[in-house]
């Protein structure tokens, strides 16, 4: 699913500043890095030895005929092999360590940042997009920052030592070999990029196919009822054909690339054979030396291919680097101020009372970024222990008001005061630890029901959990499940119905025993009978607590101390149920209209 969100990848100019910052992740592992430098150098030297040993052995046999002492060659070859193996072991170990640790670090930093970023950030970024940053982008970057950097160092060392050696030994043959390198590099980069682009297309096509299967299964009834199989199959075939074309194209590119590289290499080797052979006939070179140079020429191809592959990847991964860095470096909009942080560091809290008392909205205004104003100069006082119900049409600003109160967003104008102190002068932890929130779309984490309720109070005992469930009216349905409180709820609570999820999330908030309870249409999917039970529990729970409830049900609204009718970001009417009915205004209209909605559902009456 992650690949879907990578479609903005395009080849870009390499921004060195960006990579320099990212390189800090690699440089953090100084010890491993230093070891690696040593290992890479050793590896290059070992690599250098083999052609030399081979060439010399051939030359000596060629010259001396029957009287060669093999012992030194055996020793040298044995040693070179032994050290080579040690260094290869070290190479993979170092690169592996840096690769795994760098990806751990990047993911950790990004995750930490995500825990602090404000809701306004999440409003603009879909979960899938964020997931892709922490999975595929992180993997990609850590690969470059570990294997890429290491291959670069090793390749450079190998090429530097070999070319120095060859240039000293025979500069003419050396130049023949070196002249092929730039051509090889350019061609390699060109093809690698093309291959990367097409493989991205393949991945994209593949995720479309997967989505299509998913849809065909989820929508199978609709498809059957409307006899859509043929049409769907046709659509699917178009996708599958696209996938096939991209895949074949991708494979063909590889099938062209590798032969070209090999052929180019063979040109170098052939030229050396002819050129070197000519020197042999002139008596200037031995056959062993010709073989040695051919050996060296072959050794050049691997690092050149590796380097060009990484170079291409670097260009293609530019977008990944930008996205990840911008995520790590972004500033949360809602955060503790320096002053508050200093106070916490000093005394452990923000220096004010832990209680929640009188809440005051003072000319509060709010708009999302440059969007329209959602809350207009709102003034409101909520006394400690009061229960407030918010009513009004969708989009009127009820949820925004609640979000502001919980400091998920901060007002763009005016102030929100708790006991006379602007909440921006207080710590987030203080407010959060006093809040109990039940949302309309309740989110449960995978795990057992008890774990989900315990989220409200991590150290809660089983008794406390059951008590909270009783109050929330959730106990009964939980006990009816196969494993009671130990029932697994599945990813996102998929095993439970929406109503059941609302009950569990209600229990979770109850367990927290918050001073300020906020409920956003928290019982919308619960049947009337359960609703009645909750109502009783709710009264107990809310006793002595301040509460704000957005609700559609009359029963919930009627029992509130004060009802606010909110429309177009303004408080249109407020007062008790009877006062508002008497006034015959908007609430009266809403009530008469809404009353129809509360009509008994047939199943609750008949099912019992």
């Amino acid at each position, binding site marked *: 699913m992650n690949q879907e969100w990578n479609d903005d990848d395009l080849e870009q100019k390499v921004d060195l500043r960006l990579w320099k910052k990212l390189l800090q992740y690699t440089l953090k592992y100084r010890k491993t890095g230093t070891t690696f430098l040593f290992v890479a150098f050793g590896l290059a030297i070992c690599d250098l030895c083999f052609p030399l040993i081979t060439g010399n052995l051939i030359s000596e046999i060629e010259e001396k005929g029957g009287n060669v002492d093999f012992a030194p060659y055996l020793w040298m070859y044995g040693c070179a092999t032994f050290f080579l193996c040690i260094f290869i072991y070290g190479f993979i170990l170092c690169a592996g360590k840096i690769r795994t640790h760098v990806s751990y670090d990047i993911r950790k930093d990004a*995750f930490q940042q995500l825990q602090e970023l404000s809701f306004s950030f999440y409003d603009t970024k879909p979960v899938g997009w964020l997931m892709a940053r922490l999975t595929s982008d992180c993997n990609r970057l850590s690969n470059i920052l570990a294997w890429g950097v290491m291959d670069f160092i090793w390749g450079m060392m190998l090429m530097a030592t070999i070319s120095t050696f060859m240039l000293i030994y025979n500069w003419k043959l050396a130049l023949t070999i070196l002249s092929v390198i730039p051509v090889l590099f350019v061609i390699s980069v060109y093809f690698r990029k093309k291959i990367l682009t097409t493989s991205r297309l393949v991945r994209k096509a593949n995720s479309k196919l997967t989505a299509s299967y998913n849809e065909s299964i989820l929508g199978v009834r*609709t498809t059957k009822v409307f006899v859509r199989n043929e049409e769907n199959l046709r659509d699917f075939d178009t996708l599958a054909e696209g996938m*096939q074309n991209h895949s074949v194209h991708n494979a063909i590119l590889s099938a062209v690339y590798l032969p070209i590289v090999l052929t180019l290499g063979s040109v170098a080797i052939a030229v050396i054979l002819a050129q070197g052979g000519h020197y042999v006939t002139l008596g200037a070179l031995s056959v062993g030396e010709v073989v040695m140079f051919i050996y060296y020429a072959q050794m050049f191809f691997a690092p050149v291919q590796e380097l060009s592959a990484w170079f291409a990847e670097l260009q293609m991964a530019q977008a990944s680097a930008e996205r990840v860095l911008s995520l790590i470096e972004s500033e949360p909009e809602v955060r503790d101020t320096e002053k508050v942080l200093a106070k916490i560091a000093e005394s452990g809290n923000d220096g004010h009372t832990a209680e929640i008392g009188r809440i005051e909205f003072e000319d509060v205004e709010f708009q999302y970024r440059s969007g329209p104003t959602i809350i207009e100069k709102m003034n409101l006082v909520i006394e400690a222990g009061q229960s407030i119900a918010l009513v009004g049409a969708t989009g009127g600003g009820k949820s925004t008001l609640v979000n502001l109160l919980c400091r998920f967003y901060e007002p763009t104008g005016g102030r929100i005061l708790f006991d006379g102190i602007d909440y921006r002068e207080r710590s987030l932890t203080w407010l959060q630890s006093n809040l109990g929130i039940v949302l309309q779309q309740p*989110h449960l984490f995978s795990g057992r029901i008890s774990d989900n309720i315990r989220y*409200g109070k991590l150290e809660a005992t089983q008794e406390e959990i059951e008590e909270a469930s009783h109050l929330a009216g959730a106990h009964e349905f939980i006990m009816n499940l196969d494993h009671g409180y130990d029932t697994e709820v599945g990813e996102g609570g998929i095993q439970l119905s929406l109503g059941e999820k609302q009950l569990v999330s209600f229990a979770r908030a109850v367990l927290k025993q918050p001073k300020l309870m906020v409920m956003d249409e928290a019982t919308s999917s619960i049947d009337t009978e359960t609703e009645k039970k909750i109502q009783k529990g709710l009264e107990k729970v809310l006793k002595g607590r301040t509460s704000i409830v957005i609700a559609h049900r009359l029963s919930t609204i009627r029992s509130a101390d004060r009802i606010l009718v909110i429309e177009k970001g303004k408080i249109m009417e407020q007062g008790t149920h009877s006062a508002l009915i008497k006034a015959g205004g908007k609430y009266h209209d809403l009530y008469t209209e809404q009353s129809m909605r509360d009509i008994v559902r047939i199943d609750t009456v008949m099912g019992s």
Partner: protein
Amino acid sequence: MSTEPIQSSNKTLWELIAYQKKRYLFAIAAMIIGTISLLSVPYVFKVTLDSLTSGQADLKTTLIPAALIIVGLNVLHGIFTYFRGKLTAEASESIVRSLRHELYKHLERLPCVFHDKSDTGDLVQRCSSDVETLRVFLATQVVEIARVALFFLIAMPIMFSQDFRMSLLSLSLVPVIVLVAILFFRKVRGLFQKVDEAEGKLTTVLQENLTGIRVVRAFGRGEFEMEKFLKRNGEFRELEFQLFKILSVYWSISDFLVFTQLGIVLIGGGYWVMQNQITIGTWILFWWLMRTIIWPIRHIGRVLADTGKATVAIDRIQEILKEKIESVEEVSDAPVEGEIVVRNLTYSYKEKQPVLTDLSLTIKKGETVAFLGPPGSGKSTLVNLLVRLYDYEEGSIQIGGHELKQLNRDSVRNAFGMVLQDPFLYSKTVRENVVVGRSSAADHEVEESAHAADIHSNIVDFEHGYETAVGERGVTLSGGQRQRLAIARALLKEPEFLVLDDSLSAVDTKTEAHILRSLAKRRGKHTTILIAHRLSSTRLADRIFVFDHGKLIQNGSHDELLSVKGPYQKLWNIQSDLEEEIEQDLSGAKKS
């Protein structure tokens, strides 16, 4: 060479490959020519080097032609490698494509009974990752195995024709290298899997956190979440690092073996040259050949260890393809219309208690009926049987005098316009989703039905109106909007039978009233079945059927049912009481 459809369902790996026999055969031929060209290069070297050491060589007659031949052989190898790559890609992708096609077609044709018991995630995984495993196997692993095999098949005759003892020496460690590779990868397969699982767990924690970020924040559980994440992140790091550690040992050992084998060729060959048993050229030939063919062996261990996966994958795919699809009856000329007559119908889902027991009822052509009853009373089951989503065994259902079981499934479904309880929208545009009802519909007809379902005004408010995409990348519709869109498409179909299965549960009262008025206007146009949870819908019905525990307990018109003591009357009274209470509330407020 075209893509032939895979017909029969039970295919082994080899049978699958056989579908693209021609391409694979040509690919093998190309590979043979390519490999021969490549392995001839050392031979050219041998000849050249021999003529150099014997002093017979000169630039024009030996060296330049040799160089040209070497380049020529490589070009030849290149060309045939290209053909091999193209052919195998085409072959494997064709096979996979027809497999995908077959899977998709099959899934859509499998009965609801199958879909009810299977897990969507699992099915999708079989269709995507298992097919992908198979694709990788067909496209690269098969080729890799063939390439290594050919290397040896072609190199061995060359070697043995040159020198028998030298050949034995050159191949002495090869079996060990192969064995070590296979044993190693077989052993670490578990670790590879563990790493994958750890990554999966990490991703899950991440996804859970991000989707539930509002809850995390609301409960101030950032630290708790961080701990959870770091634990998984750390586990993944450790396991992956462990894998690297083991791999570093393996590559180091296998490199040692390879270099030792090459060393044996070098030193042993040198010794025989010294004793004049072979020429320098032959010596280099062996050394070069071995250098060409020995490296790929190390990877083959991994490939061979992975082939098991492909067999498992194909088995998992077969399991789907082996499932029986819905029966297909002959299409008859007579249209599906008329009276619906249900007689003594009993139905149960998979050995469970019957959902419908001995049910009999008749719905006349053009009639509007309402089904009432608690959940599980059999209302939905009955309509699902009517559109043949399920097949009944006991009793009979007749439409227009024809036994439903003998009617063509698609013809039956075409006669119905059905709004399902949980309507599904395709991730297409709004228009495309409505047009599902009738693809030939004109724009004004689409809009008319959207009007009737009271969704038109919502649609035009979307940024791109009817062309707005629905789903993850477009607008997310509320439950009520989804229901109304589904109603619009059923209305657009202008079906013989219109079925609304609890399709107004998520819409508000005003909208409900609007839709019910639209339905009232169409009264008599189609036979209409309403499954409802609110009494408001039942006032529209000519007749009301009250279900309980799979049985019909009451039926009759609203007035008839109201006049007799029973569940309907009871319901109605509760409702009236409530309305009265509200009235009092309102008037009481006014008085005081």
